[in-house]
């Protein structure tokens, strides 16, 4: 309210609004955003501090407190928070409701940890996260703000991805983590996104799943780009290829069924997906040889530039990013379009340093590098809007 009062005075002084409009807005804001009840907030703070105190007491003296008392204390605290969630909802206190709801969600996770500790359970952390996600799903659908929903999606997705990785063995080999995790995480994030888009009851979670889908996609792309640029080749067990193919098929079905997409969007996204899968294939497009010599790489062989992994990788990355930026621009999502085009520019700069790394250390090289950066920034600023307009007009 303070900020809107200040703004209203500024607008009034600048003659942007009339005194009547100023008064009308003040009345409207007072009716729709009543001042928060300070005493309720202080009470909530008190409850949170008491809860923290009880948990601290249990944590500090847990070896000396009998098991049943520990359990009872923890359950009473958690139940009290749960009741607070319900009471605050009944009294239409959105801030208090959201705070206690988030506290209750975190408390449930802490309770799983406490039960594991008290009974010396040898379970895996990712199974605990997944179990938490399943049991709190109905509750998180009542959240009105992003924080609780984002927290839930982030934790549950982590649990889900690692649980899938551990299907073959609970002690996940580090090679599987390194080679499979980025792509598997991305594919699961995409499937989760389409699940939240296609299921009306889960639609409130779609902004969080969209975030993880885009972030994990970029990570999967950057990871495989780096690996291929270094001339590394990965080869994982056949069942991982099959799992990735099955998940990719589900992603493809999700793309085709999404009614928000035009035919052009579908074609663009499916092409991006297929290109990313080609990227991850150990031998289809890559042979482990690099054209340039890096201080960390000794894979250089006498091959044509177009056969080298460190040339093919950036070209493939730029192609995937380019197609994805057309998709984003076509949908009118300016922020994502800008981010993707910036990433394309960055990849181009990295390619320049790949090719002329040694030269860039000289005075002449630094001048060229600076000029390149200026040119790219100028071109981005000048042609970005035109490019986005062009992508928006495209159709199939």
């Amino acid at each position, binding site marked *: 309210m303070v900020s809107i009062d200040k703004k209203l005075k500024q607008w009034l002084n600048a003659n942007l609004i009339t005194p009547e409009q100023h008064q009308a807005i003040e009345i409207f804001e007072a009716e729709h955003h009543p001042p928060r009840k300070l005493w309720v907030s202080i009470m909530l703070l008190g409850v949170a501090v008491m809860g923290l105190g009880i948990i601290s007491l249990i944590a500090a003296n847990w*070896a000396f407190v009998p098991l049943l008392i520990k359990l009872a204390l923890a359950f009473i605290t958690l139940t009290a928070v749960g009741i607070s969630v319900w009471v605050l909802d009944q009294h239409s206190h959105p801030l208090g409701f959201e705070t206690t709801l988030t506290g209750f969600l975190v408390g449930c996770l802490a309770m799983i940890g406490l039960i594991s500790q008290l009974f010396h359970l040898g379970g895996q952390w990712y199974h605990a996260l997944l179990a938490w996600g399943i049991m709190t799903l109905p509750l998180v659908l009542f959240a009105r703000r992003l924080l609780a929903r984002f927290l839930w999606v982030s934790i549950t997705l982590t649990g889900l991805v690692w649980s899938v990785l551990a299907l073959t063995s609970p002690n996940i080999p580090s090679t599987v983590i390194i080679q499979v995790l980025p792509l598997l995480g991305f594919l699961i994030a995409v499937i989760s996104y389409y699940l939240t888009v296609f299921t009306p009851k889960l639609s409130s979670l779609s902004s969080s799943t969209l975030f993880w889908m885009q972030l994990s996609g970029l990570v999967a792309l950057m990871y495989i780009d780096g690996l291929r640029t270094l001339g590394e080749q990965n080869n994982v067990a056949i069942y991982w290829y099959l799992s990735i193919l099955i998940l990719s098929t589900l992603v493809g079905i999700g793309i085709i069924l999404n009614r928000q997409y035009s035919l052009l969007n579908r074609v663009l996204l499916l092409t991006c997906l297929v290109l990313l899968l080609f990227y991850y294939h150990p031998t289809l497009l890559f042979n482990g040889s690099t054209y340039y010599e890096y201080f960390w790489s000794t894979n250089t062989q006498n091959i044509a530039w177009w056969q080298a992994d460190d040339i093919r990788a950036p070209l493939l990355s730029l192609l995937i990013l380019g197609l994805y930026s057309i998709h984003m621009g076509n949908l009118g999502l300016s922020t994502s379009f800008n981010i993707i085009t910036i990433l394309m520019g960055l990849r181009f700069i990295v390619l320049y340093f790949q090719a002329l790394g040694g030269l860039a250390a000289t005075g002449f090289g630094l001048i060229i590098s600076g000029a390149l950066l200026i040119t790219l920034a100028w071109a981005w600023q000048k042609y970005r809007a035109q490019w986005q307009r062009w992508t928006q007009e495209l159709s199939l």
Partner: protein
Amino acid sequence: MSRTQQLALAIALPLVLLAANATWHLYQRSQGVEVRLPIRGFDPRDLLAGHYLTYKVDYNLGDFCNITQSTQRQEHTICLEPLQSIADSTCILPLSGMCSTAGFNTGLERFYIPEQYAQALDQAIRDQKGEIVIMVKNGKGTVKDLIIDNKNWLEFAKSTH
């Protein structure tokens, strides 16, 4: 169903599930046959992982798993009474677990401890003074206690502190 009722159910669901889980473990702890088994550390790995000790249970049966591939896992049941590496129809007290390259694991290989006693307990287990007390019923084991030098772990830790 009204929104208020739906919210009440959504809050109650995790509480009920967690309470049921805790009650189940309490029940498991009080059921079955109590068995005491020696435990060993696996040098040079650190036995301390945060607030818990990790160890291998010595069933006095040698290496019976014979698994060589790191991705391979196989369900396996041993017999604690009479002691046999494979439980057959004569077995009175079976214990089920999973065979892998890490050996035979039953989920009993973890014991939570307060941090201030960690070093003393870690050393005691390295010196092969540790035993766990488990409750076994229907092939499933539950950790009940940790014994060091024939004392409850807390008594032992206090005496060395």
